[in-house]
């Protein structure tokens, strides 16, 4: 782990700091708001997965803004509420790039910004195949108080989250995460498998491994004629399972945590997507419950609007 000097006591970004930083925060927020209100919402056909990825990328030029929330139970310490915001942009039909901002509140403790992630997904094959691979690479700069549990890797266990925020946030990690996203949709069913490998950039740290697997299907395979919020084709149900597989020093299931999570996505004609997924720990190393929900909206032509605002053609 790359340890920052604890004597410097890093402050939470955006929560404390000088006026200059606050003005930059506001400028960024206004630019993003302008960009999103000036473009049209698009109907997503989003999968219900929260941890697993299928092979579908963001449509080029579109921006999807997503908010996710996780309530997690914690034995021998306080429960927590973690959350993250995603800005997912379709750079090309074969390339999606995404920025995450993470935070969490631990009950009886504090609220902290825990770091950011920059993710890229690249589709190497132009057409649909029996199995469709997508390459995933992510840079993470998060501290030990991060609790979003967007993936489970290595020997991640429930007790990792037991430390008080003030202590945990002092340990800053720089990590690269690689995933191979394998996915297929057949007769309405999507099946996806994501093996993953993570490397803390400190040379002494081992590679850590994990997995996520998911299956999902719309409630109806044919669209109805009328516009409706509650049509069965707007709902996609699924289930995902994810967990750690140890590291290069001890590969396997020993001292790892695993979750099983039914999931539901509701794609509204107005362009909003709601997701709900209660995840249940499968062994004593896992949190008993990770209750997740998310809200997202896709905006078409975001890239063109931003370019226009900045004087492009």
């Amino acid at each position: 782990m790359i340890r920052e000097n604890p004597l410097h006591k890093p402050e939470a970004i955006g929560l404390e700091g000088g006026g200059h930083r606050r003005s930059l925060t506001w400028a960024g927020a206004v630019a993003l708001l302008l960009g999103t209100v000036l473009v049209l919402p698009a109907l997503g056909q989003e999968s219900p997965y929260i941890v697993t990825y299928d092979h579908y990328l963001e449509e080029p030029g579109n921006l999807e803004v997503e908010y996710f929330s996780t309530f997690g139970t914690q034995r021998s310490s306080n429960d927590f509420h973690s959350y993250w915001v995603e800005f997912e942009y379709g750079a090309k039909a074969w390339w999606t790039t995404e920025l995450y901002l993470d935070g969490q509140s631990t009950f009886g403790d504090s609220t902290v910004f825990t770091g950011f992630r920059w993710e890229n997904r690249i589709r190497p094959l132009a057409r649909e195949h029996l199995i469709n691979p997508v390459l995933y690479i992510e840079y993470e700069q998060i501290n030990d108080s991060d609790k979003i549990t967007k993936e489970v890797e290595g020997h991640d266990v429930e007790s990792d989250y037991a430390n008080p925020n003030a202590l945990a946030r002092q340990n800053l990690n720089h990590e690269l995460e690689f995933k191979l996203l394998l996915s297929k949709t057949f007769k309405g069913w999507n099946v996806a498998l994501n093996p993953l490998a993570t490397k803390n950039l400190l040379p002494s740290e081992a590679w850590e491994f994990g997995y996520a697997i998911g299956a999902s299907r719309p409630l109806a395979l044919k669209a109805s004629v009328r516009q409706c919020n509650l049509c069965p084709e707007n709902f996609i149900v699924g289930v995902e399972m994810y967990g750690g597989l140890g590291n290069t020093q001890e590969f396997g299931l020993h001292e790892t945590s695993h979750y099983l999570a039914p999931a539901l996505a509701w794609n509204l004609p107005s362009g909003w997507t709601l997701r709900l997924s209660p995840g249940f720990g499968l062994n004593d190393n896992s949190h008993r419950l990770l209750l997740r929900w998310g809200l997202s909206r896709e905006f078409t032509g975001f890239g063109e609007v931003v370019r226009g605002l900045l004087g492009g053609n």
Partner: protein
Amino acid sequence: MNTAPRRSLIAWLLTVGFLTFVVGTASAQSDDSAAKENDHLHHQHFAEFGKVPEKARARLNPLVNDRDAIAAGGKLFAQHCAECHGSTAEGGRKAPNLRAEEVQNATPGTLFWILTNGVVRRGMPVWSRLPEAERWQIVSFLKSLPLSTTEESAEAHTHKHPSRDSK
């Protein structure tokens, strides 16, 4: 160096980098869109039709007798396709006219295959995420569209790129 300003600086550099990247790729897409306007690229768009396997080309639309297929396909088209192809499928800045002769003369199986596989290198995503029946509903809708007249095509072209035509 105090870690708080350093982390803040890195976070802002990343945000600015992300926005710069968005703007940059949007410009590149715009250039691509402009380039696609010329006839040569127009034909290249439809050149993908020539790559459709014979077996896929010969597939028949199972919803050909479904009375609701066209209307449902129209709804799906408005939701997923119109943002690029235009609300009446006349083409847009990013995607070609689907009322063109090449599309209207293509077999239903060809359109279904293109919809399923996309034309990823030219910016069209794969749409296999839509269930098969919904893709056939979109094909039904596309085949119900009237063929563009030469005048309509020219008008759509002028509407999309007025500055190019005024040059």
